[in-house]
């Protein structure tokens, strides 16, 4: 990377239908985070607890696919406010584990989880208006907004994330190569 310029890049991150594993893996870049902070500042992110994306974000990093209406809303907010959007991890890239429900009707899943599963209190299907409505199918994020870069992996390793970000910050086309490129 070049020497730090005057203005730090604004980076926002979020986890949609993901498990936060990609964010944990991001923290696995360990002390390199300090180097990174010479170049970037965090905007909305689970790491800052800022709730809204600033309109002048340079980079948005999205973990997780879309399993409910709120995920779609947040994704659109990121697309509106970030110059460059990155899909990080298997779930953002192809729906991942949550998308393995896609061959089952949503009603069947809700029935089974809340009514017929053994060992569960015979409860109601949650219907609080505060809860975002689930989508019929889980979708990868590129099916809804334009995504500029993809970083596959479940999760991508800290080294893969580091390579990817340093390439991007240096203005290079990110390239992972053997050992860092993984779908699993």
């Amino acid at each position, binding site marked *: 990377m070049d020497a730090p310029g005057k203005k730090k890049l604004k980076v926002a991150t979020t986890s949609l239908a993901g498990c936060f594993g990609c964010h944990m893996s991001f923290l696995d870049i360990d002390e390199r985070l300090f180097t990174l902070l010479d170049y970037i500042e965090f905007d909305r992110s689970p790491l800052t607890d800022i709730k809204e994306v600033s309109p002048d974000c340079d980079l948005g990093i999205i973990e997780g696919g879309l399993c409910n209406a709120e995920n779609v809303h947040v994704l659109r907010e990121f697309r509106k406010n970030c110059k460059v959007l990155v899909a990080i991890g298997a779930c953002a890239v*192809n729906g*991942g584990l949550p998308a393995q429900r896609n*061959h089952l009707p949503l009603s069947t899943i809700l029935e089974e989880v809340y009514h017929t599963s053994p060992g569960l209190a015979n409860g109601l299907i949650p219907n609080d208006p505060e809860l975002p409505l689930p989508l019929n199918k889980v979708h*990868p994020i*590129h099916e809804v907004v334009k995504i500029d870069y*993809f970083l*596959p992996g479940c999760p991508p390793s800290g080294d893969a994330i580091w390579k990817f970000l340093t390439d991007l910050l240096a203005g290079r086309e990110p390239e992972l190569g053997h050992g860092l490129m993984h779908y699993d």
Partner: protein
Amino acid sequence: MTQTFTLDGKAIPFADGQTIIQAALAAGVFIPHLCYHPEFKPHGSCKLCTVKVNGRQTASCTMRAAAGMQVESNTEEINAERRALTQMLFVEGNHFCPSCEKSGDCQLQATAYHLGMMSPHFDHFFPNRPVDASHPELLLDFNRCILCSLCVRASRDVDGKNVFALSGRGIKTHLIVNAKSGRLADTDIALGDKAVQVCPVGVILRKRTGFAVPIGERTYDKAPIAETVAQEGT
């Protein structure tokens, strides 16, 4: 004097009757492929092995080598088309590598890495393809079938059993099991059969052995597919 053709500027020797891919692999030059297997008659269906011969596209697993041919393979243009084909294979099935026993040993995945496939690009079909777990020793997970027909050819030509067949046409093509019930348990397939060994992806799986070799220590974790295949000359 040995006859040669030119592949990406390199002279490749060949014997009469050899296809382009056979000669290339024998010379240690990798051409991506999924439905080609050195032990079987070519099927020519996946088109991953497409090259340009004297400027025209053709499948290198079905095209015989001829002296003086000018063949292009490892070019930006052809690799982009191979990548698009690979992306289509991913979205037509259900490929969730993190939960697939074949991950790291899978030719589709390794080929996608080789081609730098960072995303599936297209919209996913998310088809409904129930698995067949009827057999006590083997699992069939149709979600990952790429219709390469290797199991069909192996069962028919080597095992002499005809356990598998491709049925339907176009996008409806799918793998079937030749039993009245349609279940693998009702065939005479056996663990030692060639058809059990040959699937390039994670469809035909031996039960209870899936993670005997841990993720991270598998075939294509050690070396990328281009090196692995070129070394073996397959």
